[in-house]
């Protein structure tokens, strides 16, 4: 009798806990727990048939179907420009360190990873306008991001390279508005693959103001003439961008990265892609 009342009192508590879970998977597990408690209540009320049905449908079947539902419909949309070694297309596949990190993170939070390649300058805009969840592709965050953006903890150290302003021809000097964007790294017009074309034409400094280490190395491998490129002082690192409002995503990702680093898996991944 007492057990029945305790379980009955627990039901609304578990219901509230399940409803207020920020993570979908936790909410589903909360619902399953609710069903299991309810089944126990039925059992104590001498209704074993109902208890069996509640346990099988509520705790087993419905939980499994919800798990399936978040497996594919819950999507993690990541926008990125290609950065060789970090995230880049290789035939039909996407490879790179950031890609591996994102795959692991998406799997952990039960979201379906969807990567869309966009021109670099679209990345911040898309996240700012909630068209995408995360920005990737060799992003070195600003010391102070724009008001709606937030950067995740760094996952890899990097360096920033900048074309000297004086090396630019006068007529291609940027309008005043661009000056602020030029603080970011990397920064260039269009896609990374466009840079290779510009490099062949010798017009690289007209479209790019700054580059990051991974891209400089990739350009160097293609035999690009990178004269006029200066390494900036200071320590920089790659991170992802998330909208300021996505507190839960930010927290989940930070937790995931910490665990990845503590377990040594991050080192293994970095070694695999940059050895």
């Amino acid at each position, binding site marked *: 009798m007492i057990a029945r009342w305790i379980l009955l009192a627990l039901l*609304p508590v578990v219901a*509230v806990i*399940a*409803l207020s879970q920020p993570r979908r998977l936790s909410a589903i597990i909360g619902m399953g727990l609710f069903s299991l408690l309810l089944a126990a209540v039925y059992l104590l009320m001498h209704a074993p*048939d109902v208890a*069996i*049905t509640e346990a099988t449908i509520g705790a087993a079947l419905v939980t499994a179907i919800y798990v399936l539902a978040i*497996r*594919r419909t819950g999507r993690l949309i990541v926008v990125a420009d290609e950065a060789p070694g970090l995230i880049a297309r290789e035939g039909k596949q996407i490879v790179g360190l950031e890609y591996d990190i994102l795959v692991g993170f998406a799997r952990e939070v039960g979201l379906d990873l969807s990567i869309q390649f966009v021109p670099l300058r679209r990345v911040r805009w898309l996240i700012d306008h909630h068209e995408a969840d995360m920005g990737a592709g060799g992003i070195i965050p600003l010391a102070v991001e724009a008001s709606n953006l937030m950067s995740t903890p760094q996952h890899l150290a990097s360096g920033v390279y900048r074309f000297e302003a004086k090396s630019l021809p006068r007529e291609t000097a940027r309008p005043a508005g661009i000056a602020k964007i030029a603080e970011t790294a990397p920064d260039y017009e269009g896609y990374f693959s466009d840079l290779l074309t510009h490099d062949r034409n010798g017009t690289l400094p007209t479209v790019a103001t700054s580059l990051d280490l991974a891209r400089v190395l990739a350009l160097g491998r293609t035999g690009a003439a990178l004269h006029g490129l200066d390494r900036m002082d200071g320590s920089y690192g790659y991170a992802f961008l998330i909208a300021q409002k996505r507190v839960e995503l930010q927290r989940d990702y930070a937790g995931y990265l910490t665990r990845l680093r503590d377990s040594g898996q991050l080192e293994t991944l970095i070694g695999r892609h940059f050895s």
Partner: protein
Amino acid sequence: MKRMHVRTLLAVGIVAAFAGLVALSYVQTAPDPADSQYYLARPLSETGASNRVAGIYLNYRLIDTLLEVLVFSVAVLGVRYYLRKSDNIDLPDLSESEVVQTAVSFLSPLALLLCMFFAIFGHISPGGGFAAGVIAASALLYVAIAYGMTATEARWDPRRLAFAEKAILLSLLIFILVPAFVGKSPLTDLLPKGTPGDLLSSGSILIYNMLIAAKVFIGAWLVIAAFALHRGEL
């Protein structure tokens, strides 16, 4: 922090509202415990099922149960009809880690055993066809999650099972309705009533339980398969 607060408040509100509604309906139309005496007072030999619940819904209330099976069949039909077309790209097979696969391969045979127990002993002990079917379908769903849909579908082909589902529904309909139409009571005594508590007792309840278990199992699996087909993969 503030957002978390709002979420919790909202959750408390929703739970309180539902609990209030249930309490209100209970106060207004509280079931009378004496009602159950009507069935409990009847001799056990009347249905032959020592599980009183099975005796009620597969003997006294057989037509209600038939309609319940029909409702379920219509639901399966609807899902299969509306999820028939798919414009999805071929998504890669998602299969889970070895831990999940090992756990599933250990648990799913146990679940199938439990399914058979509930179906065969549903008239003696708690259980019954509905729960048995759902257990088997859940077990298969967990297998599909662990090993991928393609591998599971190859063994449990939904197209062939769809035929079996309809055949079972048809046989249930014939079993129950034909005697009713020719002016006799529905077929509840296909097998001898026997001694309550024996495996072969309770007339047709044993057959109904097994048919319903197969029907619910196939129906639930068809819904899951339609779901998977529509999305490209589970």
